């Protein structure tokens, strides 16, 4: 009889998957910068459209930054599962000894770390370009740190639902953006509240609570969506 092999647990599979994704990202370093570039482009276009008006820019800076990050994030959703679905890797995840939801969670978090986190790192620079008042910057960063993982988790469900559709085009945006609304409202709204002298902590706490809930529920919904897409 075949001797029992080593069956990997949660931690080993997470390390294997994260390691693979980071290695893949390193092989295509150029692609990793694309969300960043898109966010920068959005900021530049907004500045051009608003007109050279620093006080006006300062008023809308936080909202524009949030939009840039959100739109760049929505565009990057396609890279979450599509390549794994196309080469047959995704199917094999269903046969792994760990729950599919766990693998999804690891994948989404690594994806967030490699697409959204760079944007957050660059956010202070973009904020400076838009003349964001300096006292709003910490709140903006906090809202981005809490909100972008939420966007990735919710976006994961949409990405999984559309992974088997060729050329989904505007469909991903149509599905994802309404679901993003609460995150955008509380994220950008927390900074807007602070700007008006109100307390931003309430909105940030709501984002945090949403993040905790999404960390559990979103991978489960995404796993169900993957199963439906692969059938």
């Amino acid at each position, binding site marked *: 009889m075949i001797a029992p092999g080593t069956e990997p647990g949660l931690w080993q599979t997470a390390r294997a*998957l994260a390691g*693979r994704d980071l*290695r893949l990202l390193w092989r295509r370093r150029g692609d990793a910068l694309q969300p960043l570039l898109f966010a920068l482009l959005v900021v530049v276009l907004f500045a051009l459209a608003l007109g050279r008006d620093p006080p006006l820019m300062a008023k809308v800076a936080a909202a524009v930054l949030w939009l840039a990050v959100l739109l760049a994030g929505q565009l990057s959703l396609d890279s979450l599962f599509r390549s794994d679905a196309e080469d047959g890797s995704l199917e094999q995840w269903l046969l792994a000894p760990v729950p599919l939801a766990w693998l999804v969670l690891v994948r989404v978090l690594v994806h967030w770390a490699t697409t959204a986190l760079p944007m957050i790192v660059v956010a202070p620079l973009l904020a400076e370009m838009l003349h964001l008042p300096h006292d709003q910057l910490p709140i903006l960063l906090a809202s981005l740190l809490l909100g972008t993982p939420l966007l990735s988790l919710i976006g994961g469900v949409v990405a999984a639902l559309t992974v088997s559709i060729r050329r989904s085009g505007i469909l991903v945006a149509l599905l994802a953006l309404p679901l993003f609304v609460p995150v955008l409202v509380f994220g950008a709204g927390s900074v807007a509240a602070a700007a008006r002298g109100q307390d931003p902590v309430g909105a940030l706490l709501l984002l945090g609570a949403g993040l905790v809930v999404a960390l559990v529920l979103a991978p489960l919904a995404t796993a169900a969506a993957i199963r439906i897409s692969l059938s």
Partner: protein
Amino acid sequence: MLNSSNTPPLLAAHGLAFSRNDEPVFGPLDLQVDAGEALLVQGDNGAGKTTLLRVLAGLLRPGSGTIQIDGRPAGHRERAQFVAYLSHLPGLKPDLDTLENLNFLCGLHGRRARQMPGNALAIVGLAGFENTLVRQLSAGQKRRLALARIWLSPAPLWLLDEPYANLDLDGINLVNRMISAHLRSGGAALVTTHGAYAAPPVRTRLVHLGGAGQAVAGQSPVLPEVRA
């Protein structure tokens, strides 16, 4: 290798049927694979062989029927433990090299004891290609890499979808040798093929998926097949 009547078959399916858009794809079908056995699923293109394998692998839910693995109802745990599935799509990342791919897959699914990615590459004839990116391999070489992955899997039941595709005569012999070795050590294999030109030279059961989704299971040491 005779199966004692006490041990349940590695894989057993009863009344298995599947339809898509209300068109029957196959079934109702009864089949069984014991340790040390191979089951050959034959049929023309579009007869439902791949669908059958996907149902057995748990990717599709059958319209009716039950599947038992090792005597227990087939669930996620049983499949993860007992089933290794090789599909049309090899599940290899083009931007990683052969060793990196194998190491990842072992990290995800586990590794058969006493087997290492390095010697698996040698077994399939890819020694020397350790650091070659999968993107740079030919179709036949990619297929061999996929076989190396199956070889490393700790699962006893192999579900192989068209394993002979893209392989030259050398490759076909390789597949047969691997299946024979696997069966000798107590594993089992379910192989689909759309031609009678290649079959594992081991004691084989036969299922032929014919037209109108009919299926007939027969037993034959060598082909000729029984048509539906």
